[in-house]
């Protein structure tokens, strides 16, 4: 990147930090008990087919390519780390990245359905973060929507020959954002605004949190590229194998 591009980028950030107002926002996972029963059942039913596809894909990959187990563990661990980091944001509140982008880019979206769900289960059981009743909904946003978006962007970048690093950055960035857009949608559907309906409620839930999540999504994108750099330096053989498709 040229110097002036850096300068432009930094200016943009300064403007962003100066004008983004400090307001309360929310995102992250939906708390235990905070979805009505009907929606709990709906999201669980919607999520289960994805979980089954994910399990089957994971079993297939580990059986056919046992040498890739290390990389799978790596993408799982990456999600583990990132979703444990509650990061302060410009809105004066904290939220955490998801980390599902890396694995989705490496293995396709389905493997990460399982990984993301494991993380969510861990947090629901031990950390009172999210919940078992809301696990279906939370998994739909973080473990299904996130990886799908990441994989979509990866395919797009590959097709149009966009630089691999930028592709990975954006895949991680948008998978992070997508997770929280879906979360807001889920909450808006369950709690439509009394006057404005679902849309007004969605704007309320999403409008503010987007600002919270943007810097976190950038951070996630950067960290994903760092790990990718490591992999492309030291395990190029596995990566080429994955490129050819497992």
């Amino acid at each position, binding site marked *: 990147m040229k110097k002036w591009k850096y300068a432009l980028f930094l200016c943009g950030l300064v403007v962003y930090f100066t004008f983004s107002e400090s307001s309360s926002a*929310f995102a992250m996972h939906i708390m235990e008990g905070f979805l009505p029963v009907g929606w709990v059942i709906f999201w669980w039913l919607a999520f289960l087919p994805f979980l089954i596809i994910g399990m089957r894909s994971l079993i297939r990959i580990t059986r056919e390519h046992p040498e890739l187990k290390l990389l799978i563990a*790596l993408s799982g*661990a990456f999600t583990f*780390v990132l979703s444990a980091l509650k990061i302060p944001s*410009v809105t*004066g509140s904290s939220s955490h990245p998801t980390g599902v982008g890396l694995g989705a880019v490496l293995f396709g979206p389905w493997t990460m359905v399982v990984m993301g769900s494991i993380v969510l289960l861990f947090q629901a059981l031990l950390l009172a973060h999210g919940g078992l009743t809301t696990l279906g909904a939370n998994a739909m946003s973080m473990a299904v929507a996130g990886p799908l978006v990441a994989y979509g962007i990866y395919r797009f970048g590959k097709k149009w020959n966009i630089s691999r690093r930028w592709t990975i950055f954006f895949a991680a960035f948008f998978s992070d954002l997508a997770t929280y857009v879906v979360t807001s949608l889920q909450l808006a559907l369950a709690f439509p605004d009394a006057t404005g309906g679902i849309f007004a409620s969605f704007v309320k839930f999403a409008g503010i949190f987007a600002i919270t999540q943007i810097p976190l999504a950038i951070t996630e994108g950067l960290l994903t590229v760092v790990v990718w750099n490591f992999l492309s330096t030291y395990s190029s053989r*596995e990566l080429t194998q994955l490129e050819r498709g497992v």
Partner: protein
Amino acid sequence: MKRSLFLLVFAVLLVVAPLLFIHHSDFGGTDDQAEKTIQVIAPHYKPWAQTIFEPPGGEVETLLFSVQAAVGAGIIGYIIGVYKGRANQRDEAK
């Protein structure tokens, strides 16, 4: 390697910047604020399920979050080490 270092520094800056620019905020979790927003939109809604286990106090919660991050970071470090070792071996064999 240099590029990765730059990216890491930038990531840290992004995290630190809000702490420098924003005062009078305790950076509370966004999910707690979700609860409040729900109570504004639907004041009569009562959560119908409770978490099975809640960490007793903030310190224990912090501990569990650190354990989660530490386990993950340990695994990542180990695996990258394995790959680096393999790459070195391949280079030596040549």
